[in-house]
């Protein structure tokens, strides 16, 4: 057995023949030319051809992988005609009376070196873009046709590292995965592999030998392992993983676009929990029907100072607009306890879980609260935004929150800034007090969302951060499930909907219980949406029982 360890950069297990990418041979030799004018024309034609190819690649990308990779190729096209770059090529050609290939190569090396010398990882990586553009012009000069895998069956593509245009031009139906010597999680190979949804391992170094060309290999894009001739145990483990992954894929394929409804017609809203606008891709890919919990903390945790109204508005608007009319529940600031931010200058507490956190901070610091509410209401004009307040224990807190919302709305109205006055307002149900007060609270809001993580910690008196509570920390405890039922009954009595956005929502073993309780919405990690949907579509709500509450 040969085992190579690299870095897994795109998950999945795949088996196939290793195929070493043959970069076309185009060694550049400097030669003197007689007819300089003809050489200039040859160069201009190669530059023109390169631009056309790159623009075509950008169009192709726009249809296949999205706007971001399309912009990459558009930038490459602009590199081809960059005035300093073209001027240097022309100058070398003129001064040395040499062939166009040599001039292009020399200028390319100089510009790549300029980026490589910069004190910034992002800019250093741009050297690869310059090299890629240079190679393209050279290929056009030398008549080398890139791409194409000379194999009848799909292969695992092995290479030093692959340039973006190389990865894109390859016949994708022939690639099962990537294994590269160089590269990182941020390399183009990794990014494109993830976009294409195929496994990739990079950073294998010299362990990936050319003599392995044509050998049967297994790659695991999660653990970063590449295996040849696996022993029995390794083979069994890999096969098992592969099979589970295939089953999952089948499930994904059949569940996309289906409704979240039980066999007897009970509808469930299956939403997603997200931590920043970056997670939207996963929500779309997994067909989430809305956002049940958008944690606004990332804006505060990532910054050195209070995020401005505009900054917040941009983030909320981006998510609301991208969800295109589907509900987006945004939770107001929930810091304190396990999430600390220096510039808030909160006092150190013995027991922060029961201290100054979440809505308590907002009600004590009206300016911080007002900024966030203004951003939220402004975003409400761009999609179906719902506002959710965390850590509620009392009726007066909700009344005060509503007053703050009202005053922000009148400000915006006076300033002529658009907002939706009917924006839904809800609360997290995550304290024992909110369970006992549920009937009163339900009359004041448009929805409830149960935060099972905190509800469990407060109800069972088990600290979430404490790891050795073992059997005492039982999220399936009947007390928790009864509490959820009590909240649900109160919500339905008041005619509002109730969801669950904590960990328990994604616990498929509890789905029958939640159906029996009458939960209307489950908000889960994007990757859980489709498995949960499959389970819902197999269920019969009427036959679900409350036995777990006993």
């Amino acid at each position: 057995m040969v085992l190579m360890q690299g870095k897994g950069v795109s998950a999945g297990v795949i088996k196939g023949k290793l195929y070493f990418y043959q970069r076309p041979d185009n060694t550049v030799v400097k030669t003197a030319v007689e007819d300089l004018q003809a050489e200039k024309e040859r160069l201009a034609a190669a530059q023109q051809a390169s631009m056309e190819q790159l623009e075509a690649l950008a169009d192709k990308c726009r249809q296949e992988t999205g706007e971001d990779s399309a912009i990459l190729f558009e930038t490459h096209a602009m590199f081809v005609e960059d005035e300093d770059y073209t001027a240097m090529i022309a100058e070398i050609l003129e001064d040395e009376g040499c062939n166009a290939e040599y001039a292009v190569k020399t200028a390319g090396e100089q510009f790549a070196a300029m980026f490589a010398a910069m004190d910034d990882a992002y800019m250093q990586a741009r050297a690869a873009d310059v090299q890629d553009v240079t190679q393209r012009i050279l290929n056009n000069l030398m008549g080398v046709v890139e791409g194409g895998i000379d194999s009848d069956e799909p292969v695992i593509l092995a290479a030093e590292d692959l340039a973006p245009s190389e990865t894109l031009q390859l016949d994708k139906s022939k690639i099962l995965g990537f294994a590269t010597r160089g590269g990182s999680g941020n390399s183009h190979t990794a990014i494109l592999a993830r976009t294409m949804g195929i496994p990739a391992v990079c950073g294998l170094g010299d362990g990936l030998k050319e003599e392995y060309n044509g050998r049967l290999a297994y790659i695991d894009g999660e653990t970063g392992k590449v295996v040849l001739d696996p022993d029995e145990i390794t083979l069994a483990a890999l096969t098992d993983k592969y099979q589970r992954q295939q089953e999952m894929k089948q499930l994904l394929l059949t569940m996309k676009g289906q409704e979240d409804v039980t066999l007897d017609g009970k509808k469930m809203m299956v939403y997603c929990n997200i931590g920043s606008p970056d997670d939207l891709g996963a929500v779309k890919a997994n067909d989430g029907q809305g956002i049940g919990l958008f944690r606004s903390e990332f804006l505060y945790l990532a910054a050195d100072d209070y995020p401005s109204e505009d900054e917040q508005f941009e983030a909320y608007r981006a998510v609301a607009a991208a969800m295109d009319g589907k509900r987006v529940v945004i939770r107001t600031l929930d810091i304190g306890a396990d999430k600390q931010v220096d510039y808030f200058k909160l006092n150190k507490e013995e027991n922060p879980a029961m201290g100054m956190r979440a809505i308590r901070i907002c009600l004590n610091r009206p300016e911080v609260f007002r900024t966030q509410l203004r951003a939220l209401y402004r975003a409400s004009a761009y999609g179906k935004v719902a506002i959710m307040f965390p850590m509620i224990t009392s009726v007066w807190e909700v009344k005060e929150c509503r007053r703050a919302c009202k005053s922000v709305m009148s400000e915006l109205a006076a300033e002529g800034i658009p907002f939706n006055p009917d924006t839904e307002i809800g609360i997290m149900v995550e304290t024992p007090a909110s369970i006992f007060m549920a009937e009163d609270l339900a009359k004041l809001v448009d929805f409830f969302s149960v935060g099972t993580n905190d509800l469990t910690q407060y109800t069972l008196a088990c600290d979430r951060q404490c790891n050795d509570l073992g059997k005492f920390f039982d999220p399936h405890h009947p007390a928790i499930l009864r509490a959820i039922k009590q909240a649900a009954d109160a919500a339905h009595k008041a005619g509002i909907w109730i969801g669950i956005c904590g960990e328990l929502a994604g616990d498929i073993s509890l789905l029958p219980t939640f159906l029996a309780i009458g939960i209307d919405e489950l908000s889960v990690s994007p990757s859980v949406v489709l498995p949960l949907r499959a389970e819902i579509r197999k269920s019969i709500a009427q036959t679900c029982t409350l036995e777990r509450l006993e």
Partner: protein
Amino acid sequence: MKQFTFLIRDELGIHARPAGQLAKLAKPYGETVITVTKGSQTVKASQLMKLMSLGVKRGDEVTVATEGPAEDDAIAAVQKFFEENL
């Protein structure tokens, strides 16, 4: 000549994407030269690679200037671009 100074708020600064957009924006102004200055280095907005190599990041202050027949229109367009994207 028209000019303004601008404090970069975007985290990545003038990276490939805005540099490309800026170069594109500068193109139709032809004779009117648009420049970006950081510290002692000045480059034209149309010099895509040189512009990127300035390594302009969040917190940097740059001076943007336009000079030529359409300098008024150009400065307005560039200022709008900076405010919206950087």
